[in-house]
């Protein structure tokens, strides 16, 4: 999902924004995105721990993790840290 981006006439000056950085989602300009192989994943949550943008969330009710692609920069740290090699960086 991509947030609707506003024109220069619609935004407040000087970076004053609604919910701070949530208005400036990073998701639109990434080139790679992490894709998980569910079978390999052990739910060790190292990816959640290492994601620099907090874009991977642990959902206890599902017992699984979710990627928030609106915040993901596609840096690939999660894929590097994954001990089971369950995350692959794919071109968007």
């Amino acid at each position, binding site marked *: 999902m991509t947030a609707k*981006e*506003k*024109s*220069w006439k619609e*935004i*407040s*000056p*000087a*970076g*004053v*924004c*609604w*919910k*701070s*950085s949530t*208005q*400036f*989602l*990073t998701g*639109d*300009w990434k080139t790679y995105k992490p894709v998980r192989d569910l079978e390999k994943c052990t739910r060790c949550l190292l990816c959640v721990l290492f994601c620099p943008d907090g874009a991977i969330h642990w959902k206890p009710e599902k017992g699984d993790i979710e990627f928030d692609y609106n915040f993901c920069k596609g840096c690939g740290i999660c894929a590097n840290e994954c001990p089971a090699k369950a995350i692959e960086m794919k071109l968007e």
Partner: protein
Amino acid sequence: MKSVVKQEVLALNGDEAVAFAAKQSDVDVVAAYPITPQTIIVERFSEYVANGEVETEFVCTESEHSALTACLAASVTGARAFTASASAGLALMHEMLFVTSGCRAPVVMAIANRALSAPLNIHGDHSDTMTERDSGWIQIYVENAQEAYDSVIQAFKIAENTDVLLPVIVGLDGFTLSHTLENVHVLSDDAVKRFVGTRKFINVTNHEGRTVPFKLDPDNPTSMGPIALPNYYFEFKRQQEEAMKNALKVIQDVNKEYAEISGRSYGDGLVDAYYVEDAEVAIVCLGSTAGTVKAVVDELRAEGVKAGLLRIRTFRPLPVERIVDTLKNAKAVAVMDRSMSFGGNGGPVFHEVRHALYDADKHPYIVNYIYGLGGRDTSPMQIRKIYEDLQKILRIKRVETRVQYLGLRE
């Protein structure tokens, strides 16, 4: 033009006039670091503070970079902030100039224009402010101490206009204006206070979704200028350009409004035209040199030469239409630059004026004179020579040397 308020005549030099204007403008915060030739502004202002003549928080910082940072911080919390600098001090502020204009903080800064090193030189030329012409600050260049006084008062009203919200530089030529004593007509404290008024704020939506005034306030938290990635930065810069466009009208309005109370106006606030409507040969210049040129124009007019002067008062935003309109009858134009753009095609003012005339119906012959660098004097005889050169260009119908150096030993 008649003034409606009673005025006093004081003997002030340019710097003192600026300090006096800042004092009357009811400034909340002044943060500054002294540098020649601006020092007198800060000295006088600190005296006003020490004597209890003004209720201002005076911050002695350890560098110009910190001085502007303090002013920016004060300004975004809603205070009226003022600072002064020159030359190397302005260069040290470079980063913060962009932050201030980007945060849309209406800080007013007086610059006593001075040459930049090396070699070290403390005297007047426009190298410092010309270097900062793309920093998003409105730039006003003044002709005399009287205009310096008037312009600082106007600057607060221009900067704080809700359609503009941009910082303003008031440039006065170092030593030529900053250290020369003149008779300055000053308004009463009340009249200035009424004219400048209190700061107004636009409304923005904060992170809680509430509509709050555009300032930092602990009770209504907002974030200002934190980060904009490639998907938004461009949009913020476009907003600043729009504010500059709005400033063109606001500057004219403020100039008109000020004329009503003081009886003094400077052209239309953007350009100051002197006999240029029917002039065949015209000079375009900034700042104090205009006084010398006016004297020469008077002499030449008495001799029957159709000479004129266009002084660009507001260099940023550049009043392109006014320049084209005012120069429409000129057949040969000389642009005087008190700074150099090394490796460029002439000086910065020449770039701008020549570029503005590209879209005009009639294109005059146009030449550039670099003059007065590092405080070198420019005499009426030299100005006269420019007009003679322009007349020669009209006779031979071509420009021989596009960029010339006035007063350089060759």
